Structure formats: C-alpha cells, structure tokens
C-alpha cells in the first residue's frame, strides 16, 4: 500500500504529459468492438450517411495508411462532437482518430472554398465589422442566402449570427486599468464569437469576474483554430492555434498567478486538449503551458465557490430557464458546473436538458450537405426545450445558442448572464 498522503496515481502535469504521448493510434488496440460509441453517436443515429464512430473509426483505421486518403469517405460526415470518446469504456480516442482521418481526406480531395471561408471567423469578423450594418442586411436577405447556398454551399436556412459592429477588444482597450487582487490574475480569452458577434457577453464575463475580486486583463489574442481543425485544414489550424498559444503563454510566463479563462467552451477545450491531441502538438511548449492553465469560466467560478470565495450576494431571479450542456462542454470532463452556479441564484428554476448535442457542431450545420443532418440531430434537444416550458435556454457555447434560438425561437444566453443579473451588475 502507498504511504500516508502519497498519491497512487499521477496528479501533476508532467505525468499527464507523459501519458498523452501514448499516441492516438495506440488506443486503437483497446477497441473491443463493443459498439457503445455507436449507441451514443448523434450523427449516425440521425443519418445513414455516417455509418458510426466505430465503423468509420477503429474499424476503418486498420485500412488507413499514413499520408494516404481513407478508403471510406463517410468519415467526412462525423461532426466532431466527441461524444464517442466520452462514452468509450476502453479509452479509445475515437473522435480524435476520425478528425485526423478527415484531415487526410481533405488533403487528398481538396478543401472547398466554402470551408476556407467559414473556418476563418477572425478574418470574416475583421472584414465585416466596419461594414456590419451592410453585412447583416446582406446576410438577412433571402436572395443573398439562396445565392450563397448555390454558389458556396452555405445552407440558406442555417443560423448565421449578426456582426455586432464593434469589437469586444475595442471596448476592452478603452477600459480603466483592472482592479482586483494582483495575485488573482485572469487573462480573459474571449474567442471570436464574443469579439465579433456578442461583445456584450464578454463585458458580462469581465464584470462577474471583477465582482469577485479578480484582476482581469484582455491581451491581444486571436482565433483558436478549431473551425479550421474541424474542417480538416490542419496546417492552417496549427499555425492559428500556435499563434494564439504564443500570445497567451507570454502573458502566463510573466505572472505565475495568472490563468486563462474563457466563456467559449469549445475554444477553451481546443486550448486545453484538442489542439494538442488532434493536431499532434503535444510537444509545443506554449500550448503545454496554456493547456494546463486554461479554465472554462463556469469551472473557475465553481472552484471559487468550493473554496468559499465566490460572492453569493445574489438577488432573486424569479424565472424558469432550461440548461443545455453542449457536447464540447462535456468534453472538458468536468460535469456541468453551470448547473451548480445557477442553483445558487434564489428563485431561479433550472430545468436540466439531457440531449447530447444540438447538431450544429461549430460550422458543421452551416454546410449545405450537412444542415439537414444537424437539424435531425437537434430534434431531441428542441423537443426537450419545448417540453420544458422554459422561455429561455442557458448554454455555454455560442454556435449552439444560435442553433437553439434558430430552431426553437427561444432566447439562448450564456449561463454567466444569470449571475451577471443576480449580482445586480446589469444596473
């Protein structure tokens, strides 16, 4: 038996790193073909075009040769939600293997222009922000959407967000020097959704963090590369995420008490794990540092609460809200911290939804050939939302919120919005 106080397993980063070096492919050997992944895959359960994570993954992987395109192109229909890897009782990295196979497929068959465009939210945002009213008008015009569908393959019914016209970072630069304890430094990673589409979400996150005495800085940043990665453009994704990691790592290196906190749950997952594992960047020192010190905003606030350090001066909100944990939030493997936080707000009635995925999976549901699949995947969630009777849906990921609002007509906001209001910060 181990000695008192000793750890029987690893608790520190170096050992985690060591284990991450066990390559994805080695995990294949653990597949016993139990098909549990297939029972949980939202895509293959909605369409025969994707035969399932086991079939497209561990089973097909045997026929794949590095550098050659996969023999079965159906892997392109995997949405990358990652649920297969979460439910696998053998630890096979199914979604990650399939993401790599998808990239090989794109390398061989080429990437459509459409994917090259929609996988670059930062570029789109920079171009459209100065002309936001015009861009929004255009995107709201049916003929323009029909044309985009025909020419580019962006589905004319897919939910597209509106450009805010003012970037979050512009607001952040104009902010007074941060208050809060210097020993509790949060580097706020806002992601592209907050930067170009929902800058108010960022202001609310900053307000809630500062209300809790944290010192929030907003350094120059950029896209995490997730849309590029999920569209199979790995080289571009690597360049993009390494640039971001370099910037964040520089800030982290300056202050040993600093952490990175984000409200875009798929982007923080990209920094924590997916870039390293899927893009094969385990050895990147910047990402290694950033990965260990990045937190989802609800994860951080719940940790503060566990330490008795979260302010609980929460005023009642007498409303009903449904909560959907996105697949990418579940990929953090931290449970549903938003539920515990929402439970702290007096009067707020929270209805937990159990659907696994909203279908949109970032840019998947925007694609003409996949939009109907995304809507079929969403059916379970949408039915649960309607049955819940809740007029609003809290959800951690922006693309999922847009999909929910689009599909149910209900308001969908980040869970942090409720804390923001309960703290009285909206007044």
């Amino acid at each position: 038996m181990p000695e008192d106080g000793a750890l029987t397993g690893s608790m520190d980063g170096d050992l985690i790193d060591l284990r991450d070096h066990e390559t994805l492919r080695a995990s294949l050997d653990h597949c016993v073909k139990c098909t549990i992944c297939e029972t949980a895959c939202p895509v293959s359960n909605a369409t025969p075009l994707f035969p399932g994570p086991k079939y497209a993954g561990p089973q097909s992987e045997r026929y794949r040769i590095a550098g050659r395109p996969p023999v079965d192109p159906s892997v392109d229909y995997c949405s990358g939600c990652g649920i297969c890897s979460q439910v696998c009782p053998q630890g096979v990295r199914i979604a990650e293997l399939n993401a790599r196979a998808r990239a090989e497929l794109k390398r061989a068959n080429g990437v459509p222009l459409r994917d090259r465009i929609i996988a670059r939210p930062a570029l789109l945002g920079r171009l459209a922000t100065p002309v936001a009213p015009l861009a929004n008008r255009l995107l709201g015009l049916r003929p323009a959407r029909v044309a985009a569908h025909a020419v580019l393959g962006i589905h004319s019914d897919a939910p597209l967000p509106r450009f805010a016209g003012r970037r979050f970072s512009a607001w952040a630069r104009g902010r007074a020097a941060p208050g809060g304890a210097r020993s509790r430094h949060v580097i706020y990673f806002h992601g592209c959704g907050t930067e170009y589409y929902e800058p108010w979400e960022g202001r609310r996150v900053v307000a809630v963090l500062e209300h809790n005495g944290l010192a929030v800085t907003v350094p120059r940043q950029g896209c995490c590369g997730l849309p590029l990665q999920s569209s199979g453009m790995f080289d571009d994704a690597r360049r993009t995420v390494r640039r971001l990691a370099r910037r964040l790592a520089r800030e982290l290196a300056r202050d040993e008490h600093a952490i990175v906190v984000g409200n875009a749950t798929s982007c923080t997952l990209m920094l924590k794990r997916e870039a390293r594992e899927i893009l094969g960047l385990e050895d990147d020192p910047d990402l290694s540092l950033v990965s260990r010190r990045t937190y989802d905003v609800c994860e951080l606030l719940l940790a503060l609460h566990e330490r008795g350090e979260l302010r609980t001066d929460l005023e009642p909100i007498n409303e009903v809200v449904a909560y959907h944990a996105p697949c990418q939030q579940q990929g953090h493997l931290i449970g549903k911290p938003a539920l515990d936080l929402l439970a702290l707000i007096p009067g707020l009635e929270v209805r937990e939804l159990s659907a696994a995925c909203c279908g949109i999976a970032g840019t998947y549901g925007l694609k003409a050939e996949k939009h109907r699949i995304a809507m079929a995947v969403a059916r379970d969630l949408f039915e649960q939302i309607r049955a819940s009777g809740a007029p609003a849906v809290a959800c951690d990921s922006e693309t999922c919120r847009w999909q929910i609002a689009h599909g149910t007509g209900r308001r969908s906001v980040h869970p942090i919005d409720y804390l923001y209001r309960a703290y009285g910060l909206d007044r």
Partner: protein
Amino acid sequence: MSWADAARRFDAVVIGAGTAGMTAAIALAQAGARVCVLAFGLGSTHLAAGTIDVLGAIDGEDPVRSPQRSLARLASARPDHPYALMGASTVAEALAWFARTFAGAAPRGYGYVGDAGRNMMLPTALGTLRPSALVPTTMAAGDAAGLDRVAIAGTPALRDFHPGLCAANLRDAGIRARAVQIQLDLDRADASALGVARRLEEPAWRAAFCRRLGAVLGAEDRVGLPAMIGLHQAAQVLADMEQRLQRRVFEIPTLPPSVPGMRLFEALRRALRAAGGTLVLGAEVSGAERSGGRVLSVAARSAGRQTRYRAPWFVLASGGLGAGAIELDSRGRARERVLGLGLRGVAPASAPRFVEDFFAEQPLARVGVAVDERLCAQDAPNVVVAGAALPGQAPWLEGCGEGVALASGLWAARLVSAELGGRCQATQRSSPGSMPGDAAKPGIDATRRPSPGSMPGDTATESGDRCQRMER
C-alpha cells in the same frame, strides 16, 4: 494547485456507471446525499442482456428454479459469496427498490416483470435457455414455460442473429420452433439491432415491417425477434406489433449494442438526474490521495488537467476482470487498477492461471477487491465495494450479475447514508423515492454489519443537525 483549483466536494463519490454504481448513486441521492458518479465511459448495461439475473446456477448444477429459495443453499455452499454477506432480505429489498425506481423513471408502459420466486427461462440468440428473474416487458412472452409453437424471425441485414440456429436449438429443447427470415433494406453499411429499433418507432416503417413478417408466419402463436422492438417507445411498439401480427411477440437479447440494456441505463440515468445526482462520463479515475488507509480524494482525468473529487465516502463499482478494472499482467499478477486495492481470490503464484475447459470455472473467476463483512475495502475503510468488483462470485457461471449489482449498490447506499448520519436527513425527508425500511438503526461500529432495511432518516428525529449538503 493554483488559486483557481479546488476539489469538488460531495457526500459520496461513486466510481462506475454500471447497474451497481447507478443503484448506489440513485439510492444515495434519493436519501438526500450529494452524489457524483465518475465513469470511464459507459459499461455493463449496454453490453448485457438487459435482464435482471439474480441466481441462475450453483456450482454447475441444473438451472436454479427459484433464486429466492436457493439463496440460502448458495450461502452455505459459498460463505464468501456477496449474497451470503448481504443476506437474502437485502436481495429482495433491492429488487423491490429497483422495480419502484425503474417504474418511476422509465417511459410509460415499459417495465420489468417477474420476481425472485421463480426464474423464467428465456431463449438466447443461440436458442439455449437462460434463467432470469426479472425481465423487460418486451421479453416476457419468451418464457419457455409458455412457449409451444414459436417463430424465430430474423433478417439477413442483421448478421449476428441467425434464426435457423436459434430455432434448431429450441427444437432440441422440445419447443416447436421454426425460423423465418424477412428482407429489410436498412440503408446502412453496418446495420444493428439499435438501427432497427429506431426505425420501428416510425409507424409507417413498422407497419411495412409487420406486413412482411406477417406474410411468412404460419400457425405459430408467438414470434421471437432480436431485441430491437423500439428504444424510447418499446411498450407502444410491442403492443402495436402484437396487434398487427395477432400473436404475442418477444425479444431475444442480441450481441451488443443491447437495446434493452440501453433502455435500462437511460431509466437509471433519468432517476439519478431526478434525484439530483451528477454523472461525469469519460472521467477516468487516475489517482487517489490517501491518509491512514482512508481515501481523501480521487483525481479524474479532465481536459488539460485532472479534477479532484473529495468525499468522506467512496463507492467502488468499477466492475471486475471483464470490465478491465481488475487486470492480470503478463507475469500472472492480478491488480485492481482504480485505487490499487488488495485483492481476494487470487490463486498462489505456483497455481495455474487458466484451465483448459473454456466453460469451466477459471481459477480467477472469483477474484475481487478484498472486503470486510460490511463490503468495505480492507485497505480503505471508507471505500464500499459494489457489483462485479466484489470477490467470491462468478457472475457468468452463476447468473447473478444484476442481482449482486442491485443488492450491493443498495447495500453501499445504506451504509454510506447511515455513516453520513443526520447530516442528510433534511433533504431525505422530502426525497421522492425513499427506501424500503424498518426502524433498525444501522451499525456504525466497524465490527458490526449494518442491518438491512434502513436509511438514516427512518430513525432520525427532526431535531437532528440540519445539513442538506456538505459545507463548501
């Protein structure tokens, strides 16, 4: 640990989301405890038949007719068996708890029939008969006691189910069985019973399916199909098919994915959510912090880091050799992988690890975590062991997997509840599904067994300390 890290705190952390772990977690949550289930993926439910097998055989004898009556004989033949340690009354109460909990969480009309007084004999995909105490509504008509003339129906699209083989073996058992096949275009490269189950929930598809099947049926009064009669609406699909075919219809368990097992898990998951418990999937427990033998916290893998879970009590329901929670290395050494706990039932190093006959009892068949008479790990007094991780049983030979899982899951919940004491009573009083119970106060003394049938709130007074949740 930085200022931004904190262990998540719970009254109890359950490791494993199979039947044992979910039972322990639901019962604890129902009793008002703050519970978290950590699961390295989904497990036993999705791979097993979806029946509740209590006791099928003792030491290779003929199938057990009545588990209830045979439990005493098992206890005297194998005093180390989990059933012997828990007693027959715990088993009966666990089955009653399960029936109630399942009924409260499953879709309308779908439930379990039968009891521990009599085993049903259900056809397997091979056409052998398997004893089981509680079976899903959709399997009940397959009980051999009522089988006379039966059609076993399959489709070439499902490559793992061969009606001819099943029917031939049933005929050997004296049942007039005939195999029929129908053509189905499932539009799938890799068709499975789950895919058919989903299609059968579409009324038009189901009607067409029944037309094809009806056309090839003869004088049989029952039809056996692979277990695929709907996923979320199994009861309605079954009723509709029986009406269309004018015969009783029943399911035969398939190779995974097990549709009845998925129905079971979904109901358990719903019950856990309704009771306020938390389930974290994909969270592999990778380490533990210990002091004086006790487990203070466990670390589970999360993205980029590990997350720590602290609790006064842990339930280890990680499964046994089959689940990989106990493993044998190439030198023949057995090891408990989750917490590194000592094992019982490992033969001496000189003894063979395997015997030639595949179906005989293998030397390691009864290996499990070494526990005391309260089912607490000998190496870690605040870890209660439940399910297939318990030593002394051979679930595959004895047909006792789900019975042991339910009974030990409930046992663990009661013990932990009792130990947590009045701290949970405030919420327990208002919890919807309270436990079956009497007024006995469970023993807290480590040398005594907790008496079955009580939860702390059953005896606690209103004046006890009010504590719904652990102070953060």
